Structure formats: structure tokens, C-alpha cells
């Protein structure tokens, strides 16, 4: 089976053609760099994403956060849900860990901005 994907590795957005056998990518073409090939392989077998959202302080001030690495795509809503239930205490510094293990993915969530000094 052949699948067409668009690489999300960078803004070039290369159009990838992937030969798939038994749910695995056996060959990738159309990529400009290695990232595209890796992206196609994971996208076919187990797609992952980095999630960015905001966590709130007790006063409702949003603090931007991200997952420190990729999480399985189907876990996005669970991860965002857990971040929403977490209250952030100020001050926070860029890089401070808000959650150690987001929704059992083993991936941490960190602040992406220093707020309140």
C-alpha cells in the first residue's frame, strides 16, 4: 500500500510517498532530509506530537507550557486535560517542570516562559 504524507518536520512541508507493508513503512521518498524519513516511519507505525497549551495559576493567569518531547498522538487530549487540572504557583521560570509525567506517557511538561519574578 502507498500512503502520501506531508512532513511536519519544518516549514518546507515536503510531500512524502511511503510504501507501507504490515503497518510499517518499508520505503520513503520525497523527503529532503533525514527528519522526513523518520517522521514517515513513526507517522505510519505510531504517530507522535509535541503539545503546547497553557496551565493556569490559582488566579487564572495563563502560563504557556509544552511537553518536553513527543507524546503519542492519541494521548493529546488526556495530556491537555491533566495540564488543565494542574495549578501553577508563581513565580515560574522558563524550563520549570509543571508535570513530571503527563498522563502516563513518561514525558514531562515544562513552562515555556518566565512569569512573575
Amino acid at each position, binding site marked *: 500500500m502507498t500512503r502520501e*504524507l*506531508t*512532513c*511536519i*518536520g*519544518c*516549514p518546507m*512541508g515536503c510531500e512524502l510517498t511511503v510504501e507501507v507493508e504490515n503497518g510499517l513503512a518499508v520505503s520513503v521518498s520525497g523527503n529532503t532530509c533525514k527528519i522526513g524519513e523518520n517522521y514517515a516511519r513513526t507517522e505510519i507505525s505510531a504517530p507522535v*506530537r*509535541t*503539545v*503546547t*497549551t*497553557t496551565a*493556569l495559576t490559582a488566579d*487564572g*493567569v*495563563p502560563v*504557556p507550557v*509544552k511537553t518536553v518531547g513527543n507524546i503519542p*498522538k492519541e494521548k*493529546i*487530549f488526556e495530556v*491537555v486535560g491533566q495540564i488543565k487540572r494542574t495549578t501553577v504557583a508563581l513565580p515560574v521560570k*522558563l524550563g520549570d517542570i509543571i508535570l513530571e509525567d503527563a498522563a502516563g506517557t513518561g514525558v514531562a511538561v515544562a513552562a*515555556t*516562559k*518566565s512569569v512573575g519574578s
Partner: protein
Amino acid sequence: MREFDLVIIGGGPAGMAAAIAAKKQGIDDLVIFERGDELGGILNQCIHNGFGLHTFKEELTGPEYAERYSDQVKELGIPYELGTMVLDMTEDKQISIISRSRGAETVKAKAVVLAMGCRERPRGALGIAGFRPQGVYTAGTAQKLVNCEGVIPGKEVVILGSGDIGLIMARRMTLEGAKVRAVVELMPYSSGLKRNIVQCLDDYGIPLMLSHTVIDIKGKRRLEGVWVAAVDEKNTPIKGTEEYFPCDTLLLSCGLIPENELSKSAGIELSPLTSGPTVDESLETNIEGVFACGNVLHVHDLVDFVSEEAVRAGENAAEYIKGKPSSTGVPVAVKPADGVRYTVPSRLYAESAADSVHIRFRVTGVFKNSAIVVSCGERELFRKRGRIFVPSEMQDIIIKKDKLSELDGDIEVRIEEAAK
């Protein structure tokens, strides 16, 4: 009256990078005026990742990218004044500012870097029938509400325009629990990056309706829904294709325009193609010692290109302050031709140019297996082939100075399509 060697208007990524570059060139008597209450500009509300791949070789979020620069501004001791709005500027670089701490004041500068960024096309500029009920926002306003103020504007959303901010907001609203019914785009292609279509729409099953538009808005006080229809090649709605989407929120993502009220009052010549100042290869406007960079000059999609451009503006401003004469010789015009919408710069002083010259532009449509060609009359100065050129990506080409000797006419930038 306070006097500065260099005044930088705007503390976004462009203003910060220009200030850092000038400081590194030995300009100590400088200041950044920023009307907001923090440095970073629009990046503070762009909490998604995808910034800085070129500059830092890693994917940062907007606030992270901004903090790398604001940390440097602070470490280098570059003075910046927040909550300070620049109201007016004259041709001899007298700048009127107002701030809560100092009140109204006029300062004078030897050189100025314009870095005011851009703003969104206001909704009034869009020709949609119907009332203007509550619930209609520009995508950028909604982005600020959600990401900086923690306010979610609605539960059921339609987005008009598929620019990147609209795509990013489709995902953002979805993650905040809203139902995004559709992204509606007038053109037959999206003006946003493909990666954003994948990550922001496809991932969440949000339909992208190309060659469609919103023809009517329902609801008087509060938005109740919108009518969407397909359009023909002349962008006229096609009868019988109307479809009704109930929604409480309509986000408009219909493009950005450089913020140039100030430039106008200073007598700076603006380009009808970019809505930004016309500049030469050193990013100097028609007023000596006034430089422009970032989104105030032309709308960028990658902040990395903003920072790089701003470094050149800052360095050239520093050279000017140190007494290097402005551009010399007779300029040639740099003109967009087939397939090219605009060019920055729009004039070029080959004689006094640096070793290499950047020309940045956008194409007018989607071109596959084509070439970028720069020529002066019959003479070809530059040629580069590409697999695909799209309007959503700004092109950046670099021409070596030795190619630019003895120009005897205007320079044209065009796209040469592959023979069909």
C-alpha cells in the same frame, strides 16, 4: 530633550535583534521603546512551537524564542522603556513618545530602526453581509485572549481564512474544548504552511473548505451561525451551494498588514505592494538614517528571517552612526516580474552594497519545478531551481556583489515556469 544615537521603535523580535546587533557594533547610547508591558512582541501570544529552527537548530515556542533575545538585551545592558508608545516622528528624527512614568516627551535620534511589526486586517475590511454581532474576532485577538488572558471566546467555532494564525487557532480552540466546525478559505489553496494544515486541522478532523467563503452572518446581538458557499473562479458565490453552520464564534484570519502610521507621518515612502517602507539593500528607507526590519517592512512567516533581517538593520544603523556615508552612486530599481508579488529591497545601490545582497519576495501562486531568475536586461544575475514555490513561504535569495557590477538598468525578479 533626551538625545540618543539610536532609537529602536518596537521591542518584538525585530527590535531586540536590531538593538543587540547595534550594541555589539559599539553603539552604547541606544534605547528600545515598546508600548506593551513586556519585550517579545507578538511572540508572547504564539505559544505553539516551530520557531527558531534556522537560528537555534531546535524547535522553540514563541515565548521561548523571545526570552532568548530578551535575556541578551538584559545581559548586554541595553536600555528599554516599556509602556512607552511612540506617537509621532519627524523627518529630522524627532520622536514624540508618551508613557505613564515620564508623560509626554520628545526625544531626538541620530538613527532610527523601525520595528513596529504588523497588525491584522480589521474585520471591517472584509465584505461580509449581515450584522456585526458579538462573537466575531480576528484570529490574533482570539489568540491573545486565550493564551495571554486565559479567556476562551466560544464553544462552536468557524474560521474564515486559512492563514497560519487561523490554523493555529483551530487547534488551540479544539484543545480548549471548543468544536471547530470548519476553516473556510476563499482561494483554491491555503495561505498557511502545509505542516500547520496537517498538525492543526487533519489531526483533529477539522475540514478545510477551499474556494468557499462566508456569505452571511446570522445573529443580532450574539452570533448564532454563518452561511458558507462555494465560489467560482471570479470569487462569486455559487447559487445552491449554501450551507449553514451554527456557531457562537467566527474567527477571521485574513492576513496581516505592516503597521506604518508612524512611518507615514515621518514622510517615509511606503510601497503599495508590501504596505511597508520602500528600502534599499541596506534596509534604509528614503529618509537617511532610518532603517526598517521585520514585519513592519514586509510580513514574514518565519521569525528566524525577522531576526536575521533585523541584525542587518541594526548593523547598518551602527555604521551610519559611526559616520559611514549612506548609500552612494545611482540606485537601480528592483522590480517584481512574472510570478513575483513584491521584492525587498525595491532599490539597490550596487556601488556601496555589502559583499552579498539579500532579495526577499513572495510568489503570486503555486509554482512547481520552476526557477527563480534575476536579470538586468539581457543579463542573468542569478538563477535557482526549486521543486515548489508557494505564496505562504517568503523566498530569500542572496546575490554576490561581483554579479552586480556595471548594472545598466533595472533588476527584475521573476519565476520561470517549467515547460509544460
